[in-house]
């Protein structure tokens, strides 16, 4: 006797977000520092180290070429870590969801709350990175502020991707596959470190279907004020994938937690 699942309630989802925020608030000072170190290390190692050998990439200093993409990848890592390992532990080991789901909060509300939170964590990672870039030398222009809403939207997209994987796996070890075989290749082959045009055409086509690529292109366009209709295309790609994936992942979590 399957009846249609109840709709999702934003207010209930925000309660779940608040719960995570309450936990985070307790340790945020400890938690947030690595978010600032990480961009430093990347920019130092890749930008100055590698950059000493590569003078220019597409007409800009190497450090400036990679910075906008690294920013987006930091959102990716932040949001997916949250909706993979952290959600899995809350769901299966700490039994926190058993407690939450015996209140008026339903599985879909819970899932949406975790997506909001994953997007928030992604925004914190990306926001820290962004502030470092602005503080140390990336030229400011008003258009660059477009990055701020993107932090959350791109964070949300990666949160849905992580949560979808979490909703179907039974063993925590399987996350290794997700990170090594999915996120790491994205990190390396989405145009962060070299232009995609350098790769064979089939790989470029594959890249079009992956999420990080569009974020990187969008970010680099905004940073360097390369305004074009293509930026709108990248943005729409992100929006459509996020919406579709949200619908799928809410159903998937409902199925996982209400059976």
């Amino acid at each position, binding site marked *: 006797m399957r009846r249609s699942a109840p709709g999702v309630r934003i207010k209930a989802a925000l309660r779940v977000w608040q719960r995570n925020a309450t936990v985070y608030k307790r340790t945020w000072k400890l938690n947030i520092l690595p978010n600032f170190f990480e961009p430093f290390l990347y920019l130092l190692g890749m930008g100055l180290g590698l950059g000493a050998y590569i003078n220019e990439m597409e007409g800009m200093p190497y450090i400036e070429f990679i910075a906008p993409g690294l920013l987006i990848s930091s959102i990716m890592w932040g949001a997916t870590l949250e909706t993979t390992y952290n959600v899995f532990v809350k769901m299966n080991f700490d039994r926190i969801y058993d407690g939450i789901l015996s209140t*008026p909060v339903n599985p879909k509300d819970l899932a949406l709350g975790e997506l909001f939170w994953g997007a928030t964590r992604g925004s914190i990672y990306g926001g820290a990175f962004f502030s470092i870039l602005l503080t140390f030398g990336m030229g400011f222009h008003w258009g660059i502020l477009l990055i701020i809403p993107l932090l959350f939207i791109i964070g949300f997209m990666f949160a849905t991707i992580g949560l979808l994987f979490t909703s179907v796996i039974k063993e925590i070890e399987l996350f290794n596959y997700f990170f090594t075989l999915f996120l790491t290749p994205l990190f390396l082959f989405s145009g962060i470190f070299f232009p995609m045009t350098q790769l064979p055409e089939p790989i470029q086509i594959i890249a079009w279907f992956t999420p990080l690529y569009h974020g990187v292109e969008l970010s680099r366009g905004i940073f360097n004020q390369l305004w074009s209709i293509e930026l709108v295309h990248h943005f729409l790609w992100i929006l459509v994938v996020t919406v579709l994936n949200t619908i799928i992942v809410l159903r998937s979590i409902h199925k996982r937690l209400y059976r």
Partner: protein
Amino acid sequence: MTSTTSIIKAQGLTKIYGDLRAVNNIDFQIEPGTCYGLLGPNGAGKTTVMRMIYCATPLSSGQILVNDLDVMENMSAVKRNIGVVTQDDSLDYDLNVINNLLVYARYYDLNRDQAVQRAEELIEFFQLGEKRLVNVRTLSGGMKRRLQIARALINKPNVLILDEPSTGLDPQARHHVWAKCHELIEQGVTLLLTTHYMDEAEQLCDRLAVMDRGNIITEGSPWELIKSEVSPQVVEVRGDGKYRDSILLAVKNQIDFHEALSDRLLLYAADVNPVHAQIQEMNLPLKTLLSRRSSLEDVFLKLTGRELID
């Protein structure tokens, strides 16, 4: 019983997992302000019944109404009036005692003032004041259980569901939990609990359903069940070994029926004094020979041929 409207009504309740009929077409009703117990061994289907009532798992068929609301149609509204205490604690280990209550209150949309007031009342009622700011990881088993019950009551539900409320607790903590349950019943809260402890069922429950393999095999008040299903008294013999047949032969006209278990022999009768005397006269080297009042344990044994805790 007076004709009150039942607070929980289950009809044709069935849960199927693959090939397993975990709950097999059962009916029951629970009257407001009473304590109803589901009794049975592990795997009888008790927990599944409860999970269906508090919307943690969908029904395969049948219907449950809680406060006249269908659990499949009105999940959030049903859950708003039910407090749940699961068997393995589902406390939030990332939060301290007071925040476990305050964060939980938010799921019910209580505002900050209401939440603080309610949390303080509950902390006092369950005597957790000293532990207010302590991480729940460091609480004793009894305190964790009390905090879980407190948390379940944050929205003043009229139904409280407890899955094995005293399993794993030391005797003192068990009695503390039972005392609190009695107080809640007096306050008008309806309790539904599962247990495989007979003393717990006898202590707390107004009515009981005895479950076995997904079915309710009998239902009634503890005293009714003992009266109707077994004889009032029993002689328990241990170490009877090779003498079993001769004992049975000697007392067969004085007992109503018997249960022959691997480790003991149970002889049931309205009055067991003559049986006891008879066996004593045989002067056998028995380990134990004792007479006692019949209990729910005996009811279960009689109905299923099995003991409750395997």
